[in-house]
């Protein structure tokens, strides 16, 4: 809210001293951020304080940031094509290449997955799970590795296990590092308990994890045809360093130079969390892992990779207090903004949580009704989410636009829900995705997938492709500016193209002499509007002549149609 206020003040100021933004240089865009350079020593493990993180993010940090007067500016790690380069945080998958439904369903899993048809006693339990809501244990299987198995909360059969598996696929497809989480049905006889195991609760109480404890865990699990249902999370490769923070940098990781709250992929993650109602998207549901170059030398050299994990709250997790459960996704647990507004307005505003109704299925209050992606909130503020700009949201939405209905269905199928629940979840996710697309493809240009050839440029209108707006070709407009002073030139001519693709031909300039390739005289800017979004797609090009065609140097999506 503070950022929005300051941003509004900024926008209200008259624009003075406005000049041309610096030109994009004639170079390949930065597609990979080299932040995986080996470092000699593994960073120290970070302890994430549970209570302080909540109190800090809900109360103390917002107050301090208010007085800091630091509204969100542009994110730091955005390349010339308005995209996020691959890094130890993010790999462009769905947004960068054809990413099939099969790949979506595979997620971060390789061929090492649990096989429930193995002989009895072949899953050795070597560790109990030490905290409460979703009890479980770890199994160690020679040749396959280690897997953490967790049940659903007792009062929410099937939901959390399926949600963990589905959300991990979605996060992976979007581009985050996410573990391989899969729903497994197995016969209890597969399990073999290592003797002498203990577990320590969050309250510091240590108890034996013996056969009786195991049976208590299994008794809580839901079952189908006598088989136990749990979610199996593959153990992350590397040495765990604790969660990453959504603000600042790790001082002891030389590769970590961008304040996390200014990383576009973390800011934009707000929309993925909103889509799935992953309200528990806080630092404790993340993990840094030190990947050693030599597996035998766990302390280095190596690099840090950043994971998202623990998505079990997605799709309608509830708390014991119904008043909180209704608010999840609409408001933070303690939301001073709403509290103050509701007090001052004497409750005149009807809130969405007052209209919340249980769906009747396993997903409790999770629905598309009243889903407002812009207003979505996690259980408490996330420092990166609160700095998400319109550009960050639009970037993430362009990725989500590629999550078509087939891919959504492919992801949902891994949850192994009953048919009615699977259908409900698929339809709800499609509706919620469409709400995000409507909101974030409608202000900044949704034109994407830009390609350049000798004759001109083409792009795909993701809003038309997703049928958020009518797929007609009448409303496109284009404007061209050339040369050192970026003088307006002849309007480009549209080439016949099948919607949602739009193409336009560009005329090559006749240049005196043979200026260097990166000469400002060769520079041109093309604005393309789609008739619906307020802002254009702005392409920065170098005209290298008839023989070599045009070279795309930069892409911008300004908020309005103003001359470059």
């Amino acid at each position, binding site marked *: 809210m503070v950022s929005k206020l300051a941003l509004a003040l900024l926008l209200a100021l008259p624009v003075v001293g406005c000049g041309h933004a610096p030109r994009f240089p004639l170079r390949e865009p930065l597609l990979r*951020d080299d932040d995986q350079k080996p470092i000699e020593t593994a960073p120290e493990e970070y302890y994430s304080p549970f209570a302080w993180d909540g109190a800090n993010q809900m109360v103390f940090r917002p107050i301090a940031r208010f007085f800091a007067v630091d509204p969100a500016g542009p994110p730091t790690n955005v390349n010339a094509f308005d995209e996020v380069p691959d890094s130890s945080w993010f790999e462009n998958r769905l947004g960068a290449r054809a990413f099939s439904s099969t790949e979506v369903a595979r997620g971060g899993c390789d061929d090492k997955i649990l096989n429930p048809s193995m002989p009895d006693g072949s899953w050795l339990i070597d560790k109990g799970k030490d905290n409460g809501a979703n009890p479980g244990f770890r199994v160690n299987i020679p040749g396959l590795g280690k897997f953490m198995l967790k049940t659903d909360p007792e009062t929410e059969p099937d939901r959390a296990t399926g949600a963990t598996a589905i959300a991990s696929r979605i996060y992976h497809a979007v581009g985050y590092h996410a573990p391989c989480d899969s729903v497994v049905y197995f016969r209890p006889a597969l399990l073999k308990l290592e003797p002498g195991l203990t577990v320590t609760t969050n309250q510091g109480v240590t108890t034996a994890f013996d056969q009786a404890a195991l049976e208590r865990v299994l008794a809580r699990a839901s079952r189908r045809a006598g088989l136990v249902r749990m979610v199996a999370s593959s153990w992350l490769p590397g040495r765990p360093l604790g969660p990453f923070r959504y603000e600042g940098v790790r001082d002891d990781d030389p590769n970590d130079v961008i304040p996390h709250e200014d990383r576009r992929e973390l800011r934009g993650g707000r929309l993925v969390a909103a889509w799935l109602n992953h309200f528990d998207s806080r630092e404790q549901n993340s993990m840094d892992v030190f990947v050693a170059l030599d597996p035998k030398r766990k302390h280095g050299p190596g690099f840090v990779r950043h994971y998202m994990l623990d998505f079990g709250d997605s799709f309608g997790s509830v708390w014991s207090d119904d008043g909180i459960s209704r608010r999840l996704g609409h408001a933070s647990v303690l939301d001073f903004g709403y509290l103050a507004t509701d007090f001052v307005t004497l409750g005149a505003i009807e809130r969405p949580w007052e209209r919340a109704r249980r769906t009747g299925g396993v997903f409790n209050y999770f629905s598309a009704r009243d889903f407002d992606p812009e207003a979505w909130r996690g259980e408490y503020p996330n420092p990166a989410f609160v700095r998400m700009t319109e550009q960050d949201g639009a970037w993430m939405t362009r990725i989500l636009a590629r999550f078509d209905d087939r891919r959504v269905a492919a992801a949902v199928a891994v949850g192994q829900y009953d048919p009615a629940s699977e259908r409900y979840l698929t339809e709800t996710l499609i509706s919620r995705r469409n709400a995000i697309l409507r909101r974030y493809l409608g202000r900044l240009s949704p034109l994407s997938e830009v390609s350049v050839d000798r004759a001109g440029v083409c792009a795909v209108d993701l809003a038309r492709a997703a049928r958020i707006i009518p797929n007609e070709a009448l409303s496109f407009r284009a404007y061209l500016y050339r040369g050192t002073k970026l003088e307006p030139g002849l309007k480009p001519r549209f080439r016949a193209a099948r919607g949602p693709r739009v193409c336009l031909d560009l005329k090559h300039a006749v240049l005196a002499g043979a200026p260097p390739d990166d000469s400002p005289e060769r520079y041109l800017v093309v604005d393309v509007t789609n008739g619906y979004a307020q802002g254009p797609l702005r392409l920065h090009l170098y005209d290298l002549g008839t023989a070599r065609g045009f070279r795309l140097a930069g892409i911008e999506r300004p908020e309005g149609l103003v001359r470059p």
Partner: protein
Amino acid sequence: MTGRRRRLLSGLALASACILSRSEAASAAEPEKRPVPDYDGRGDRPTSPQRALLWVPRVVLFPAYFVSEYLIRRPLGFVITAAEKAELPATLYDFFAFGPDHKSGVVPFGFIDLGFQPSIGLYGFWDDAGFEGHDLRIRGSTGGSDWLSFTLTERFRFSRRLDLMLTATARRRPDFAFYGVGPDTRESSLSRYSSDTLDARLQTRVGFGGSSWLETGSGYRGAAFGQGDHNGERTVAEAVRNGDFAEPPGFRDGYRAGFSRAKLVLDTRASEQGSATGGRVELEAEHGADLGRAPASGWLRYGGTLGGFLDLGDSGRVVGLSLTTLLADPLGSRPVPFTELVTLGGAGLLPGFRDGRLYDRSALVATLRYSWPIWIWLNGSLQAATGNVFGERLAGLRPGRARLSAAVGIESSGSRDSIFQALVGFGSETFENGAELESLRIVIGARNGF
């Protein structure tokens, strides 16, 4: 317990060490960072004029930022993080909410009612103490060596609708306010008295039909009064000497009374979930007899409330209108002790007035109240009320003698035992005297709701 203490101490030690070693750790050589890549190839952008202008509020707000960031947030973060590492929160939680199911515990609280001494205390609860359906509540608070209060409640829940409760309260306070008896007393007549009271009672409550219930009980109540002491304000004796009012009845000798009481509430609203639209009738009566002076000294207090409530759209936004009359009659030749008279102000009717502001033989009050949810466990509350105390059986009642009271605030919802309240209220003179605002009341804290 030893383990807890050890963890507590080690947590504090770790927190201190963490703060002390921070500067040392910060200066230790960190590995050299790689340069920040030029992601879009355009280098560093010049600062825009709009962005540059942000330095104006930044400089202005810097002191507040410095305090909130470096004197509060960061030190607190180090301390709490260190405490969490040492499992201190779990230890504290175990300490304050003990028992395997955390059915018992201790909660600290504070209470500020402007114009009285603030108090702090501990509230203890133990559900199913010893056996199911047996609850204990203990509440001790102090506002200084001469301000002490202690309440013990034992409740036996025989069923959802029937319980029996034993309550004993002992209280010593030097800061009670007294302004005289009657509808026209003045704010300027404020005087202070002290009181030692003991109240012990046994009562049963039977619930029936939604939120209706009948409560009956009997007990003992004794009070001894003395001259007050609060911020050097004058005492009752000084006000009497000054001719502001006559000595209040019963002030000199106090009283020791047995009492019996009954209260019947007929409420058409559902007891828990659902619409709060409905009607409510309350009838109550209490008979008291001064054990040392019977039958010359006794009294009967009685009254009733008629109310209607409209839950707007069944959304928890409730408008209520109620009319209350309260009466107190002596049963012997002696007058009713002043603290057994009808009183308005404080936590009762006309909350814009201080506790003890209005005393007399009867009262009539109309209250329009609106409450609305502002959080899961908090409601906003706005009320306007008019009324006053009057003489014997509403003698002297006329519209011009009414006062106005208005209050706005927030209060916790759901708990019968303890209520959090933050309230700002105003009270006025009588209409005949111009209805000017004469009192401001500010309350924040947890008060007893047994």
